[in-house]
């Protein structure tokens, strides 16, 4: 990437709906990738430390490509670094699910599984969308995320159908994070506006497929699918939980302290 530009508004959303649409896809991956990177050096076993770091790398790589594309579409001179490091919390468009803290390993795995199941279905649909550059990035990322989904669903089975302690913790994580899943499938004005540009995916169909997949794995893991209808949303329009600001402060401090630095 070239020298980061700090031009552009730090807080406001994008006027172009396609930019907002791309930021939602990019920010999910950047934020979750950063969360996973927090495990680096702290994994429960060496192989898992490596796996979580590898998945972080894939997600941040995808985010970088998507942010670069968003910057190009926006035409305000912001590159991927400018969008990652010089947007404030309220300009981030990720879903609330991915910004939730790592918690114990069960929380990290449940969060990852719920997202991976969504991501694979979403990227598959996007790989056939009407925007060639977005479709290309989605098709590439899909291949990597299939590995992620296999990994996180495997851990769901191990933890859910493991010891009483791992079962209880995984169920608790599922019950806690469930409220953030609805937001992944809610259509709003941005989706309607990009659909008019030929860029859209069938979120209702993806929700149904996702639910079936999640129910299948949860059942096989001897866990119980939550029935609570409590929902939390707002990430897609920049209203985040208290956790994102703290995460971004750590993620952005070096770039903001030394704008334009290279190494």
């Amino acid at each position, binding site marked *: 990437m070239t020298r980061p530009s700090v031009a552009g508004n730090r807080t406001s959303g994008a006027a172009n709906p396609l930019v907002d649409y791309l930021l939602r896809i990019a920010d999910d991956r950047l934020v979750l*990738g950063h969360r996973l990177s927090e495990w680096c050096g702290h994994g429960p076993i060496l*192989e*898992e430390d*490596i*796996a979580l770091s*590898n*998945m*972080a*790398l*894939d*997600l*941040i*790589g*995808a985010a*970088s*490509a998507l942010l670069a594309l968003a910057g190009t579409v926006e035409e305000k001179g912001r590159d991927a670094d400018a969008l990652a490091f010089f947007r404030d919390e309220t300009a981030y468009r990720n879903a609330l699910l991915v910004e939730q803290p790592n918690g114990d390993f069960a929380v990290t795995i449940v969060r990852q599984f719920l997202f991976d199941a969504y991501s*694979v*279905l979403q990227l*598959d649909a996007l790989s056939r969308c009407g925007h*060639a*550059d977005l*479709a*290309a*990035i989605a*098709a*590439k*990322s899909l*291949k*990597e995320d*299939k*590995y992620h*989904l*296999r*990994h996180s*669903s*495997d851990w769901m089975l191990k933890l859910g159908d493991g010891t009483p302690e791992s079962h209880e913790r995984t169920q608790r994580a599922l019950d806690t994070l469930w409220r953030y899943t609805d937001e992944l499938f809610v259509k709003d004005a941005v989706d309607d506006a990009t659909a008019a540009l030929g860029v859209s995916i069938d979120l209702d169909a993806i929700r149904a497929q996702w639910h079936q*997949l999640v129910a299948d*794995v949860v059942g096989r893991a001897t866990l119980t699918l939550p029935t609570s209808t409590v929902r939390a949303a707002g990430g897609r329009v920049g209203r985040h939980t208290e956790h994102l600001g703290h995460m971004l402060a750590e993620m952005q401090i070096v770039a903001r302290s030394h704008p334009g630095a290279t190494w």
Partner: protein
Amino acid sequence: MVAPAVITPDAVYEILGSVMDPEVPVISVVELGIVRQVTVDGARVAITITPTYSGCPAMREMERDMAAALGAHGITDVAFATVYAPAWTTDWMGPDAREKLRKFGIAPPSPAERDGLITLTRARAAVPCPYCGAKDTQLKSEFGSTACKAIHVCNSCQQPFDEFKPL
């Protein structure tokens, strides 16, 4: 070195064939399949590359290595562009590259998945051990020392080994 009188795409490919993957220093960037296109316009060379994995940290290093190798042959006007489609696949690696991997102690990739979108369990044959050739091996993790590798253990010679994982 003085620039060759006429630069041809073939000459560029030949030079790039000497640039090794920094993480797997027995196969070149050409064998790896990341060089998608080379065009030459007079002294200007345009190289199109595609990333192996989205976040592979070696991509920029490989770009620098390619520029340096070309520079050593007097080719200094080089521009790189990145494309994402068609997505990189290990299926682009030829038999020679696969054999080099095996000799280096990395099991070469089996054919990339052609099965459905959701494959929660992978039903595929055990990866043969690159050291002793035994087929009695087990997968330890689909994530290894670099983004492109998985970790296996040979039950016969007891040697842990990397697999270049199919993508």
